């Protein structure tokens, strides 16, 4: 019985060494995060329309702010996409990462607005579309949504993909945001 008492005493003492706290972990530098997408639509003689998605705390946390826009009917626009990580100060431009890896990325555009059409005006190193630069054409007045999708590692050679059809693209979605659009 003495041995048991010794054993329990030993382990009891061992269990007293437990007052430690974890050290402060380094705050993670979320360098790959895209917090902000700006889709700027410009037409001659008109003020730029900026469609903007912003989610500063990344996935989870607070809800993002999404700003839609109003377009003029029967008008041609040029569209430019800028991606930012605004957790950094100054904000980091992620667009450059996409340009550098143009073969592995492609934007897709989907809309429920009648008569709204979007075409690619840029190409990657292989001559396939990328989608950072686009041309947009509105027709009659109407409203709906415009969804911007960025796919990572899509199959650009698959049927319809270079024409902007996402069905056979595959890959992973890095961005999928929808904006409310009014055409007046």
């Amino acid at each position, binding site marked *: 019985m003495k041995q048991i008492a010794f054993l*329990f005493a030993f382990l009891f003492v061992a*269990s007293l060494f437990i007052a430690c706290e974890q050290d402060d*972990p380094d705050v993670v530098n979320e*360098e790959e995060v895209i917090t902000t997408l700006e889709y700027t639509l410009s037409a001659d003689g008109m003020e730029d329309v900026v469609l903007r998605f912003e989610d500063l705390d990344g*996935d*989870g946390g607070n809800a*993002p702010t999404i700003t839609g826009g109003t377009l003029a009917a029967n008008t041609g626009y040029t569209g430019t996409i800028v991606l930012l990580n605004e957790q950094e100060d100054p904000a980091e431009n992620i667009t450059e990462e996409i340009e550098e890896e143009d073969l592995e990325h492609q934007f897709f555009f989907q809309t429920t607005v009648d008569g709204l059409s979007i075409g690619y005006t840029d190409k990657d190193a292989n001559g396939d579309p990328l989608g950072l630069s686009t041309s947009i054409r509105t027709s009659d007045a109407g409203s709906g949504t415009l969804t911007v999708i960025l796919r990572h*590692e899509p199959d650009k050679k698959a049927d319809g993909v270079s024409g902007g059809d996402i069905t056979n693209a595959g890959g992973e979605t890095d961005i999928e945001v929808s904006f409310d659009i009014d055409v007046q």
Partner: protein
Amino acid sequence: MFNKIEVKSTLVDRRLNFACPLFLHPVKTSLSIALFFFLLPNPSFSQACQLSISGHVVDESTNEPLHAVNIYLEESEKGAITGDDGFFTLDALCEGHYHVVVSHIGCETQYLHLTIAQDTVLQLTMDHSSHLLDGVVVTGKTDPNSTQNTQVINEQNITDNANQNLSNILETLSGVSSLKNGSSIAKPVVHGLYGNRMTILNNGIAQSGQQWGNDHSPEIDPLVATRIKVIKSVSALEYPGSNLGGVVLVEPKKIAREPHLHGRATYFFESNGLGNGLNLQLQRYQPNFAWKINGTLKKSGDRRAANYYLNNTGSQEANIALQIEKSFSERLSTDFYFSSFNTDLGVMRGSHIGNLTDLETAFTRKVPFFTEEAFSYAIEAPKQRVHHQLLKAHTKYFLSEDAAFDFTFAAQLNARREFDVRRSGRTEIPALSLRQFTYFAEGKYQQKMQQDWQLKTGIQFNMTDNINVPETGILPLIPDYFAYETGAFLLANKKSEKWLLELGGRYDNVLQKVVTFSSDIPRTLLRYTNNFHNYSLSGGLSFQPLPNLSLAYNIGLATRNPAINELYSAGLHQGVSGIEEGSLGLMNERSLKTTFSINGKLAEHWSLESLFFWQRIEDYIFLNPENETRYTIRGAFPVFRYKQTDARLYGLDVMSHLEFSETLSAKLTYSYLRGDDISKQLPLINMPANNFSANLRYLIPKWKRLENLEFQWTNRYVFEQTHLLDEQDYLPPPEAYYLLGLQLASDWQLPSVRLRIFASIDNLLNTAYRDYLNRQRYFADDLGINGKFGLSVKF
């Protein structure tokens, strides 16, 4: 004149070397060879090469003679086979040292080392109680030391399945299934419970790693084990960890008391994935000191479903284990164990998705995205790279014949890195990188008391240090923490001729110290301290009304504190396309599990093992799909939050063995399980589907130099999981499927080495199927046809 010789250093079972009271050994080995023999001195005419070895082999549990047991002397290249009466004789032997190989179909082959100076009579017993099916022995019923329902996989079965991982090997047992992510990532599920609710012990040490992840395999090489056991009832209170679900014990056996250098080399090839593997074991015993080294290398490329390649599903593994045993005296002995497990596991490229739209698109595909008609050994992202090291030191001290102390110290280091497809060269940087240190100390005391009572008590202390390595550039899914567990247990049993009573109790204090990041910007540190108390109580009774029949009842109460991931996980879990959130207010789960088993020989050639279980878990913690979607830049994701409810599980495992003749037998198994959330009247998710298997076996005990030649025809039918509502999953569970297989194995005795040849074909019909518990089912079919060939050399 007879001399009864106490065997030292020559026999397989070490327990004899010490004054070890055969005391609370949970389960016996599947085959033990008797441990004494008689010598007949023949002094006046002792001449060289006139000696004989004869003997008698009986079944340990029935005492009936065992026929067709192969006895082989390596040095003389002579063999004999026992007759119907169980007797054998080998004569015209010279004086000297002999290695004797004793093998019997379905049993593990055993080796003796004898010094022959006189005519020798061996009395051998083998535990061949007709339940050695597929080398799978259900010892629950014959083991008088326990009321626990325990199933065992022996060394031969492990070697014959050298191409499989731990969980896939366990799946051959009824009531055990695997939760998978593809073919190489699998974790065992016992009676519907897994992960945080299950304990896996590697050489007596609770495996410490990231058990919470459904796509995290246990980091153990099954080839280091000589025996793998699954305990299904709640009476394994001796072991730390959760006592709610089953316990898996991976056990390297003690090193054989064999004075020469021995070893085994095993090679296998499998056609699906063009996998190759090599395992080498070397061991030696010198007086009071023994060592064994065990190394494994495995490499496999892309696996193939019935109709297409599963790209990026290769895997590779390099493991080593070292075992050292030293005895200082009859009373004091120490052993050390070190094992290192290292693996790279590819995850099918087409199953890596960005959001819910991608997942829904994947459902519509006949062939997954990224499928190429090209085979490759390359393992690209997404992949997992896992290292696990275990160091253990154990000392046993016998106070007397009837009392002993055990002290154990162990340390583990688990490093898990998971790589995703990322932008700008970050694919080389892990997206998840966790490092976990675990320290464990244990003291145990066991004693034989009066009136056949046996007592075992102990105290355990475990510390876990879990950190996220800050290299990922991604907010961690689970936080950094320290966890301290201090536990004590007391077990007692009383044995009589027909009855066994077991009682046990356990208490654990769990202290968690957690540091995590706030979810809003700027990120701040949040610290939490939690203190939980866990209690377990168990009782069991077994009764053997007839020598061939036993009944066992076991009831256990246990609690489990919420795990770190259930409390604190936060973030997007891309694999399941959902945002998972822990809940701070979770309480302990409280479980009551009861098992009842009937095992025995119902007729001369018909035996049955059956187990019924019922389990109720109050405050069962589960991921509840919340009525909420969260918008992120990747789109909208459903939110899942850890909640508590009351759950009930019940089921039945049945195995029946029919012997049509000496050579032909059949094994039938059936597992039924049902799990419900009884407060919300909903089925539980991730419950294994019911399944049925029927195997027919043809045996030839000896044919030329081949021994124990067996052919097996296997049939497995898995029912559709119909106990699930459509809204509980993205896709309804897959349809029922049927798999056909063939197996062939034989021992081949050559003059000085013994070979074992094993070959099999799985999914012979190349059926395209998907399994409910395999997450890859959302994207692709399961494995197609796979042929395997292997060779094992024992020297």
